[in-house]
């Protein structure tokens, strides 16, 4: 605790470790929400992906098959959400909540059925079944951490500099304008939702086979909602959303370090309070500190031609 620089690197690394799944999920959520599809189901997609990453990695003894399975699982959930929201024009929040409930239930049921360990998957072997740090053995800098960091400029570039990005932004604002310009609204939104599935798949894989060594029930623990909050803090823009994710990551990293530390005049800070900090901050910030967050205009509204 004496040398501030000795603390800097581990804290930064811890921040990044915690922030990685948030960043991935937030970028995914950003695509979905920019297209006008609210995604409350980030959490459920991540959870399902985490389960399949761990389960498949344990069975095949390959981390890469685990990642592939995670992406596939998240995409199935994303398609389900797309089907409900785009094709059948259902309520997007209800669909997202349903996705979360389905994931929470199925992962436990399948986990029990396949591995008989009370919903857990077998502990993964560190050498082949997990994603390992690339450069700094103690920092946890596995490939998905770098992927998360790269995903931010990539998202920015796609959204602001490509044809797809222009149409994505347009469909989230005035879908009728996109339709009358001769572009398919459903196909555009499906692509956005599928991209979201890819990102949440990676986020889930990270949690199960990189950050941890296996799946345990409800292991995403609200990170999907924090990612969603980060998208909103970031006003649906990639770099500000990254900033929000890093802030949450830092709070979490600091919370771990602050456990048991005595603050002069206050005494020992209760662990629970520190752990609640990110959530308290979310409430306070959303309640007005970040100013008015202007959502894409057509968000949450199913697109229907007038009849």
């Amino acid at each position, binding site marked *: 605790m004496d040398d501030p620089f000795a603390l800097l690197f581990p804290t930064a690394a811890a921040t990044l470790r915690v922030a990685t799944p948030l960043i991935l999920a937030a970028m995914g959520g950003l695509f979905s929400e920019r297209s006008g599809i609210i995604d409350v189901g980030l959490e459920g997609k991540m959870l399902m992906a985490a389960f399949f990453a761990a389960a498949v990695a344990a069975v095949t003894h390959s981390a890469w098959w685990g990642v592939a399975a995670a992406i596939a699982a998240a995409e199935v959930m994303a398609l389900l959400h797309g089907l409900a929201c785009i094709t059948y024009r259902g309520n997007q929040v209800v669909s997202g909540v349903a996705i979360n409930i389905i994931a929470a239930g199925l992962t436990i049921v399948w986990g029990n059925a396949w591995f008989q360990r009370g919903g857990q998957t077998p502990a993964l072997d560190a050498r082949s079944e997990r994603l390992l740090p690339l450069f700094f053995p103690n920092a946890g800098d596995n490939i998905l951490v770098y992927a998360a960091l790269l995903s931010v400029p990539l998202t920015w570039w796609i959204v602001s500099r490509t044809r797809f990005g*222009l149409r994505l932004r347009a469909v989230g604002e005035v879908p009728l*304008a996109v339709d009358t310009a*001769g572009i398919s609204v459903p196909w555009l939104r499906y692509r956005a939702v599928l991209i979201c599935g890819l990102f949440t798949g990676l986020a889930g894989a990270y949690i199960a086979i990189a950050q941890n060594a296996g799946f345990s029930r409800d292991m995403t623990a609200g990170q999907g909602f924090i990612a969603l909050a980060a998208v909103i803090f970031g006003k649906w823009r990639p770099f500000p959303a990254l900033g929000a994710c890093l802030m949450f990551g830092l709070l979490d990293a600091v919370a771990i370090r602050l456990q048991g530390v005595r603050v002069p005049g206050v005494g020992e800070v209760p662990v629970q309070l520190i752990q609640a900090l990110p959530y308290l901050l979310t409430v306070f910030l959303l309640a007005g500190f970040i100013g008015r967050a202007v959502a894409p205009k057509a968000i949450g509204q199913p697109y229907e031609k007038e009849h």
Partner: protein
Amino acid sequence: MTAAIALEGIDKSFGSVHAVRGVSLAIEKGAITGIIGENGAGKSTLMSILYGLYHADAGTIRVDGQPVRMDSPHAAIAHGIGMVHQHFMLIDGFTVLENVVLGAEGGPLLAGGLAAARAELERLERDYGLAVDPDARVADLSVGEQQRVEILKVLFRGARILILDEPSAVLTPQETDRLFRILATLKARGVTIVLITHKLREIMAATDRVYVMRQGRMVAERATPDTDAEELAELMVGRKVRLQLEKAPPRRGEVRLEAGHLGLVDARGVRLLDDVSLELRAGEIVGIAGVSGNGQTELLQVLAGIRPPSTGTLTVCGRTIDARHPGDPAEMRDLGLAHVPEDRLRQGMVAAFRASETAILGYHEQPQFNRRFLLSVPAVGAHCARLMERFDVRPQVPGLRSSSFSGGNQQKLVLAREMAQEPKVLLVGQPTRGVDIGAIEFIHRELVRSRDAGCAVLAVSVELDEILSLADRILVMFAGRIVGEVEGGADERTLGLMMAGAKAAPALSGAEG
């Protein structure tokens, strides 16, 4: 000569509504063709079919003589057809350039396409006189400019056939003039134009040939020089219509409503009303003219007691309202102030209610409609039947859902409800929005009758023709202020300039407000 577009036997139903019935028409190349008809006559549906937004149940569409399938706007665009919709299809947060390229980006990356589009816009500006700053955000443009962006979008896609759906609905007279000059230029450059409107004056001024639709059918076709407004109106409605409203000079009585320096600031600090003073006397109709969104809606809300003013005072029949002593609509009703709101579907009625229920909204506590604890259904029904009889609301079925009536009949029902109370002050927002010509005539005559009976009437309308024929005195609103007052029957150009906010600077008359 082959027509640019030929429609043959087009038929379309939405559920039980037969919107378009076996319509055929031919649109001449390089000319301006008008399609006129009342609201609900099927004009817009027909054009949506042509543009691929709806699919016809039967019929053929030919472009340059070849039968084509229009199964999406994409197909229409590919055949050189472009549409400028009544509600602009623009994205507020995008720049003009981004809006123009949307759907025609010219490649997966934006940079190249945007540069090419910029060059193309400069060419279009030179050729057609369509000047708009390509880097301006659409939200910052005037309505007239936004419409030019829509036209640019269509031309950018190489359209040779331009369909405009009620293009003047949101424009000031000056902007409308400018639009028609642009259309004339486009026509001179060989663009085929289809103009959909319900305004007779525009058909007479701009078109070469006109088709008239009524109740889903094409009822007439005329070369514009061979017809006149009276004939077209008769064809549209199916009977003789008097376009000129006849009324005697007003006999003004005491002041019934007085607004002193009213101001209204919303929660974000935007000034919606600024120092509005007016006086409304018994026996006169005061018209509020202005382009939509210049504070008329808010003024009505304040006058009707729906929103308290932030500053200033309002006196209605002796009761004074200000920021500290707000009124409420029920109290205003008790004072003898009736209000026909601008947005009848959201404020004037409950769409899901029966007509008989709509007919007593706001007055449902009157003893005549009630027995001890419950509404008296027979009394309510009888009341509604009387109103329907008196105001010619059709169909005369008090039990029908309010939303099942046409716009004109809904408006007549709401008006009937308010007028039945014989109010001392009557506020009417957009008296004839979405109302067909036959009903317009009726509503105008009723408003004049009510005035002659001594009611003080305040009518807010964005239809200049309506204000000019209805009002004894006209106040013009611009940016939340009253910028001028003229006598009824004033000339349209003067009013138009005031509506554009150019009152103090006549030198600006050529420019856009």
